């Protein structure tokens, strides 16, 4: 086979069809990448508008109904169209097979089908805005009874989320089988890159938890059309049953968002530290532990809903336990830097920013896991700050980090690193300006999903809105820097291994050819092994 790159490869179809009908995992990944970034920018614009509205008490630019629709759509797009598919759909699809030494995922056609479910779901969200009662206004959590009472187009919007669930399930299924079946000779489970461990843990959650939300969302539709009486208290149903079902999926789903990002951190750190990772075993096992324990803590979203005191205590206890494996990861990452030889290139900056921002998010999560403090803080801006720190500062930041790490390999182009670093710095400053004041106003009692507010909160809202402008400037710098590299003719690189990484994707041509490998490789060492390092003084 000749080494035509996957970008130039000419198959049965030409032009756009050659992309949207291709079952090559790398082309599918690029399809996902383009769609994800587009939706991210749309939802970011909604966030920008919301922050503008909050600049002054009372009406600033939009009316309350529009505001309510905006935060709902912002949440729905960010959750279902950006972070949940996120890293697995883009970087998992592109790099998992290569990192395992395989030619493709196990089920390439299902892989393409999952993208169609994704685009189909996205199209349904779009249609739901202009049909029925107009844009949904329930918040991304679709809580009953409000979602049963409101006249807006809830049914179509939740059906869209139902369809998107299939996309997620298929990706998860594909990755589980791929990891079990297609590892190259020599790659035992504990010689897999940690990114693969992150995706593997995630995949099990995708496969096992997503059906729960699927059914729950269908029940909302049934309830709206036929008044079955499952959730509606007026018909003998139970609103708390809905909350249980919703969070039985949606809490594990936050680990769908973060585990792949953690896997990515575990790739980037050894590459730029020029040494093996500290604690491979504990990092890999903590992913599995998080995936498992993550199923048992959904009740911490319901501490003020009226569930029994005993169950609140149990959920609080388990929530604290799930913090431990996360802490272990952070400690091991920092320990990897000890006696390393650190080359702080652009992708590494994202990881440094991630460790600080994600730690703030995780540690403030402890306040929300504790019963008495959560009762004060739940449904306030403290929670809004917390989840943006973990989700946006976690997965969101690492999405950009991964893009900068693998961009040269994916497209054979190199971007301007100085500008990327500048963009990251502005991003981090804006991010903290936007979200840190939310912790304070949350503690002072500013509830979330509020169109209007009491004057004493204004100062925090003003700072936060200014922060949003800075953040968005940072994001635009990052995006345009990459676009410029992509479109220019001169930045071409065919360098196999620009960062000095040790995993298999750095051994294939840049950009990779259609089936990745001419000869399936055989591995003999762990994924981050480097010869010729100084031996540690004494072995433990």
């Amino acid at each position: 086979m000749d080494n035509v790159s996957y970008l130039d490869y000419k198959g049965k179809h030409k032009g756009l069809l050659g992309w949207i009908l291709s079952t090559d995992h790398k082309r599918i990944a690029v399809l996902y990448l383009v769609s994800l970034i587009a939706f991210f920018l749309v939802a970011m614009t909604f966030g920008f508008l919301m922050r503008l509205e909050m600049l002054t008490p009372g009406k600033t630019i939009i009316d309350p109904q529009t505001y309510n629709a905006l935060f709902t759509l912002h949440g729905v797009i960010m959750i279902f169209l950006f972070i949940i598919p996120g890293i697995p759909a883009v970087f998992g699809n592109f790099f998992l097979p290569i990192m395992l030494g395989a030619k493709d995922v196990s089920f390439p056609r299902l892989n393409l089908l999952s993208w169609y479910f994704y685009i189909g779901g996205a199209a349904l969200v779009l249609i739901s805005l202009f049909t029925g009662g107009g844009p949904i206004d329930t918040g991304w959590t679709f809580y009953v009874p409000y979602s049963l009472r409101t006249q807006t187009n809830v049914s179509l919007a939740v059906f869209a989320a139902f369809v998107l669930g299939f996309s997620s399930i298929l990706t998860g299924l594909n990755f589980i089988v791929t990891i079990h079946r297609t590892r190259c000779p020599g790659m035992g489970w504990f010689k897999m890159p940690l990114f693969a461990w992150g995706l593997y843990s995630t995949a099990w959650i995708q496969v096992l938890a997503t059906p729960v939300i699927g059914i729950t969302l269908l029940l909302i539709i049934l309830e709206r059309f036929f008044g079955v009486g499952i959730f509606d208290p007026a018909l003998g149903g139970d609103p708390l049953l809905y909350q249980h079902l919703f969070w039985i999926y949606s809490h594990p789903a936050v680990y769908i968002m973060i585990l792949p990002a953690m896997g990515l951190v575990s790739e980037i750190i050894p590459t730029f530290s020029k040494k093996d990772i500290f604690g491979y075993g504990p990092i890999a096992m903590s992913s599995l532990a998080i995936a498992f324990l993550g199923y048992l803590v959904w009740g911490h979203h319901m501490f003020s809903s009226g569930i029994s005191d005993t169950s609140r205590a149990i959920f609080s206890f388990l929530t604290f336990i799930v913090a431990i494996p996360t802490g272990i990861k952070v400690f091991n990452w920092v320990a990897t830097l000890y006696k390393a030889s650190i080359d702080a290139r652009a992708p590494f900056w994202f990881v440094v920013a991630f460790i600080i921002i994600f730690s703030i998010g995780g540690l403030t999560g402890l306040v929300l896991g504790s019963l008495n403090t959560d009762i004060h803080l739940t449904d306030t801006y403290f929670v809004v700050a917390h989840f943006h720190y973990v989700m946006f500062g976690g997965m969101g930041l690492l999405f950009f980090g991964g893009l900068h790490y693998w961009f040269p390999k994916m497209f054979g182009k190199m971007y301007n690193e100085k500008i990327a670093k500048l963009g990251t710095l502005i991003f981090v400053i804006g991010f903290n300006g936007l979200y840190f004041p939310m912790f304070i106003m949350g503690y002072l009692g500013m509830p979330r999903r509020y169109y209007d507010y009491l004057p004493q909160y204004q100062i925090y809202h003003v700072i936060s809105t200014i922060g949003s402008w800075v953040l968005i400037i940072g994001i635009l710098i990052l995006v345009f820097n990459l676009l410029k590299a992509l479109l220019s003719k001169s930045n071409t690189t065919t360098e196999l291994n620009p960062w000095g990484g040790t995993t298999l994707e750095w051994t294939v041509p840049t950009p990779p050819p259609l089936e990745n490998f001419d000869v399936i490789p055989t591995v003999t060492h762990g994924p981050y092994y480097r010869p010729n390092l100084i031996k540690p003084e004494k072995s433990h």
Partner: protein
Amino acid sequence: MKQTIVQHTDLTFLIIIGISFFFLAVITALMFYFMYKYSRKKNPVATDITGNTTIEILWTVIPTILVMVMFFYGYAGFKQIRNAPSDAMTVKVTGRMWVWNFEYENGVKSDTLFVPTGKPVKLELNSVDVNHSFYIPAFRIKEDAVPGRKNYLWFEPTEDGEYYVECAEYCGLSHSYMLSKVVSMPKDKYDAWYNAPRPKEGADTTKPKSDTLKTK
């Protein structure tokens, strides 16, 4: 004097944030220190360290103990929040889009929660339409008002004053306007209001005379 629930919640918050801040500072400082000390320039060849069992055990066990301490502080505070004293007076609270209604034991109705200072008050929460959440930030308490359920809350104001009540569970168009107040006043004033003669039907809107009350 502050209410014990407020004190306990703020203390729990400070303990957790204090420990967290310590960890954040250590992690951040170490990371930057290593980046400086072991930069490519200063340390061209890395040392092949791949792990250390003792330290893995240490940073599993110590945080586990610390989070257990946090859990118990939170849980102890929570028990106070859930155990209303038996001498508490009961007020029925009904949430509806988008107002709070209060009904007293003698049938008096109001849209503001008047209470005597120094007496525990137990609130029975219900909703007639969608979920709401009854939140008094100054007292650090909140509980959802869910249709078809009787949830409860209690508090004991220790100082005269006015305190905001906010709806903290999204309930539609005017969610952010679903505000009310707790007005805590000396017992004699409260009794005068409570026992004042009223027209039979309809919600009572007569306000007691509150001259120097501050809203917190």
